[in-house]
């Protein structure tokens, strides 16, 4: 079960980064990043703030050009194959939930009956049936983030990129959304890159953790997570999970020792 997705659909990695380097003026934000992400993988980019993980995510998305290095994506070239979830819900306040989730189709100029059905399905998938006609300001922070996730998934992207999406939410909402994200990953089967600074979150969600350290940002350790799939809440109190968290924390501490504080 664990690597069903990766083993069944082998082939080229979805994301392939070679020698990625990013400078902002004289400051080196990222240095010598080599990273392959396999199809269907759930990869967490874990590191402290300022380690360049958001920049790396934006480079993967094509929103930021690297100073040096090569980025290759093995996905259909048409727009809409990448979903992006920001730290803030980033919704359009003047549009209802439906119109916010419909935005990708609108921009791709495909708004038909089928697309509207998919919007409805995506809204239902994130548990917001009955809120389709609501405006973002009428929703809680967690619900807004669900809308944002529905918008990113509605095109059924090959690659879903999330930039600390749950960092601003309370612990209870965050746990609920963690489980929902796992359900959505199983259902839509995108390749996921998830930026976080939480060891516990990365260990619970992903099947691979890329540990990043700052100045300049680079990948200090690449940890495979062999916890059973599908994951559920009971895992949070299991000894395997505790052991993994301890291991990742240890690696992080070791990596940070090497980096200038």
């Amino acid at each position, binding site marked *: 079960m664990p690597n069903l997705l990766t083993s069944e659909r082998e082939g080229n990695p979805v994301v392939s980064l070679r020698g990625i380097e990013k400078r902002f003026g004289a400051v080196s934000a990222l240095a010598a990043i080599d990273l392959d992400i396999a199809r269907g993988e759930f990869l967490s980019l874990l590191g402290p703030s300022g380690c360049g993980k958001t920049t790396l995510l934006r480079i993967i998305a094509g929103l930021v050009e690297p100073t040096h290095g090569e980025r290759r994506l093995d996905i259909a070239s048409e727009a809409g194959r990448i979903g*992006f979830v920001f730290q*803030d819900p980033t919704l359009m306040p*003047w549009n209802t939930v439906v119109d916010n989730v419909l935005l990708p189709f609108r921009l791709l100029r495909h708004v038909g009956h089928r697309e509207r059905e998919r919007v409805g399905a995506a809204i239902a998938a994130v548990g917001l049936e009955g809120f389709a006609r609501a405006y973002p300001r009428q929703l809680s922070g967690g619900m807004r983030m669900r809308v944002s996730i529905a918008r990113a998934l509605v095109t059924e992207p090959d690659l879903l990129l999330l930039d600390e999406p749950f960092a601003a939410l309370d612990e209870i909402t965050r746990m609920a959304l963690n489980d929902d994200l796992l359900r959505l990953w199983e259902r839509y089967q995108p390749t996921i890159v998830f930026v976080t600074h939480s060891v516990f979150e990365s260990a619970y969600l992903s099947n691979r953790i890329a540990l990043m350290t700052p100045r300049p940002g680079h990948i200090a350790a690449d940890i495979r997570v062999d916890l059973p799939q599908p994951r559920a809440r009971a895992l949070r109190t299991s000894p395997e999970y505790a052991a993994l968290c301890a291991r990742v924390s240890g690696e992080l501490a070791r990596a940070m020792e090497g980096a200038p504080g």
Partner: protein
Amino acid sequence: MNRARLARTAAPLAVGLLFLLFWQAVVEIEQIPPYILPAPIAVAKSLLTDGPSLLASLLVTLKVTLAALAAAAFFGGAIALLFSRSRILELSLFPYAVILQVTPIVAIAPLIIIWVREPFLALLVCAWIVAFFPIVSNTTLGLNSADRNLLALFRLYGATPGQTLLYLRLPTALPYFLAGLRISGGLSLIGAVVAEFVAGTGGTQTGLAFRILEAGYRLAIPRLFAALFLLSLTGIVIYLALDGLSRFLLRHWHESAVGEGEE
């Protein structure tokens, strides 16, 4: 809730009423002649007798005001749109918009009235010059205030500049535009009045401003006050109408337009 709403209307009304009573009392006790300061009752009487002719003049002024406001909204919005499309255009033209704004309209109104032969058009141009700037500067700010992450998202889905404008920049700019419009509403009335003052009898039709001048010359001070009263009332109605329009258009989403009871 209800008490708060009641207080909002009742409190200023009470202040106004007290002020009028005080005014009436001062005029009566001090025996101030009406050509120095007419009592509120004298003004009200004048409003009744001169009402119809004053209203006809008000209509003339109102025409200029509303035409100037419409022109300010249209050209102000269009100029802002142009500025947001081209940085170089904004950099090179914005200072001149500022110059036009800070030059006192009283000083250039005589020139405009000489240059523009058509009296109505001359008044319109004067009022427009006073009114257009808040719309240009506010709307330009709004068009450039689109959320950076949303802009990134639009790029990710390959949005065209037209789509970004239609779905993101214009809705973002709407509250800014409406705030500018509310300021411009009052300014176009002021602009129209100032232009009429300068134009004097040059125009064929007499606006309210000219009636104020005329009443002053003839020492018909109660009529002067009545005309002033109508003018302020018009300003208030214009403001309330634009405020209502703003609230209506933003009612679903903008904090400024969301009622306290709804939260």
